[in-house]
């Protein structure tokens, strides 16, 4: 039984269709990254899941409670860090956390303990009595995260949690998310690929209101590795080498260029999908008595996958 079940969710704003029927499941304990360009519908999906607004059609269930009908129960189970991390500037971090905890029915006997715990977890203890308006961006983000955690939710939804943080703070935030992912189901919205790759064990890529790809980072790579390259530098006659390389089954295209090394040329092999030709290539090179100087399999980065699927070039 999945913790979050979304079926054919659609959302229309006045004239634009933000979500065009998306469906996905998230299991307990998963850390799922929601990836997409700005305006793809990530935030809209999160707002529907947190019951902030209703979908136009389709349904969303959290722990088998319907988001539109049993919204209070759903909200109790979710800790939410909204986009841009809105906070009341005139309250101190402590006051704010207590306010949030009271609204989430944290019993008054453990409220102070909970606040202390999340403040320690989020590295907030030293600034807890400062007005939020005077805190730096990094600390504000921690306050937002602490507020999402204070009622110990089963599910954590973080919408762009690292926007505006400096590199050190980003690393800290990612480590914190990783730690939280061990106990909770986490949904992380982001348009930063490295972030999703570093923290999530599953990625859902969404573009123009539709899911265009989903899977583990490795699976996604496998899917796009059509143009997966092998880069070679081989010493020997250029035409002969090209002829030889083209004979190997699975090679779709060979590009060559002059290499730094004297008498050697560089070659880029474009292979057909999901073939690893490194062995076949080295074998052929040795058999034809050329000199292999370098061989390298290019790893597709998430950036390339992202570009590919969000440009609408290919729908997986």
């Amino acid at each position, binding site marked *: 039984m999945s913790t979050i079940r979304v079926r054919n969710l659609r959302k229309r*704003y*006045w*004239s634009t269709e933000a979500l065009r029927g998306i469906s996905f499941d998230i299991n307990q304990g998963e850390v799922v990254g929601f990836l997409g360009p700005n305006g793809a519908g990530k935030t809209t999906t999160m*707002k529907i899941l*947190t*019951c*902030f*607004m*209703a979908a136009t059609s389709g349904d969303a269930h959290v722990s088998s409670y319907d988001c539109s009908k049993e919204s*209070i*129960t759903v*909200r*109790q189970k*979710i800790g*939410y860090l*909204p*986009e*841009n991390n*809105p*906070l*009341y500037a*005139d*309250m101190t971090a402590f*006051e704010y956390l207590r*306010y*949030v905890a*009271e*609204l*989430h*029915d944290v019993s008054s006997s453990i409220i102070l303990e909970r606040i202390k715990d999340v403040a320690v977890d989020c590295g907030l203890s030293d600034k807890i009595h400062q007005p939020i308006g005077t805190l730096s961006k990094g600390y504000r983000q921690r306050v937002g995260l602490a*507020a999402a955690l204070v009622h110990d939710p089963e599910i954590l939804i973080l919408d762009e949690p690292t926007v505006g943080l400096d590199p050190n703070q980003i690393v800290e935030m990612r480590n914190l998310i990783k730690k939280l992912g061990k106990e909770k189901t986490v949904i992380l919205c982001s348009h930063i690929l490295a972030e999703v790759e570093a923290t999530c064990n599953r990625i859902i890529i969404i573009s123009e209101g539709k899911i265009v790809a989903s899977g583990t980072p490795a699976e996604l790579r496998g899917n796009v590795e059509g143009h997966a390259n092998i880069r070679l530098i081989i010493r020997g006659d250029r035409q002969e080498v090209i002829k030889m390389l083209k004979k190997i089954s699975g090679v779709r295209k060979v590009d060559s260029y002059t290499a730094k090394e004297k008498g050697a040329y560089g070659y880029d092999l474009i292979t057909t999908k999901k073939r690893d030709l490194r062995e076949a290539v080295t074998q052929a090179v040795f058999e034809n008595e050329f000199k292999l100087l370098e061989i390298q399999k290019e790893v597709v980065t998430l950036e390339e996958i992202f570009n590919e699927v969000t440009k609408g070039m290919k729908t997986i």
Partner: protein
Amino acid sequence: MNFKHINTIMNKELRGYFNSPLAYIFITVFLVFSSWFYFRGFFLNNIATLRPFFTMLPWIFLFLIPAITMRLWAEEQKMGTIEALLTSPISEWEAVLGKFLASFSFLIISLFLSGILPVILFFVGRPDWGMILGGYLGSVLLGGAYLAIGLWISSLTNNQIVAFIFSVITVFTLFIIGQPIVLQTTPVFLTSFFKYIGMGAHFNSILRGVIDSRDILYYVSLIGLFLYFNVTSLKAGNGIASCYYEFIKTI
């Protein structure tokens, strides 16, 4: 309905008032203006009555009460904090009542501070206590209705100034509609209706010291109605705001 939630929101908003200069400005302006206008006539009339104070209150409230309510929802919508609030496991009624009761308590605190006037009267003459108490009851009810209207209008926009101006206009219309000056020019079949829905007539009748359950019922239902509007506008949530926004854009 969970009263703990209402209490939490109410406390937070009340603290918000007193943490900002707004509360002190409001109370000072309210006390200075009302006493100034009151004492201007006081020595001329030479009567120990608070009646001029109460007849003036609707006009002071007209500008001061929208100032109390304008930020309550508009700021939350502008800052986005409304998202954190409405994704907490609370019902819309709890949120609306919490905010309303906070502003209502603030109003009562301000009216309580104006209690120095009847105390002075008590020393210089023999005022009619029944009328004074009736006047305070009427002011509380009238102020409550103004607050409910202002709170609702604040939920329709994310701009405090817009909320303020539209609240003043709406409150003014609803107050003036039952006054003789309007009734003279309205068609006959509408006069009794206008007279009933206008806030002014009910206020004047409470001021006379006649506490009629119909007047009280009128104010309580008016407050209830606008709080209900407020709940529906929150339920429509982003929907309604984006509808307005798109509507304005298309014009």
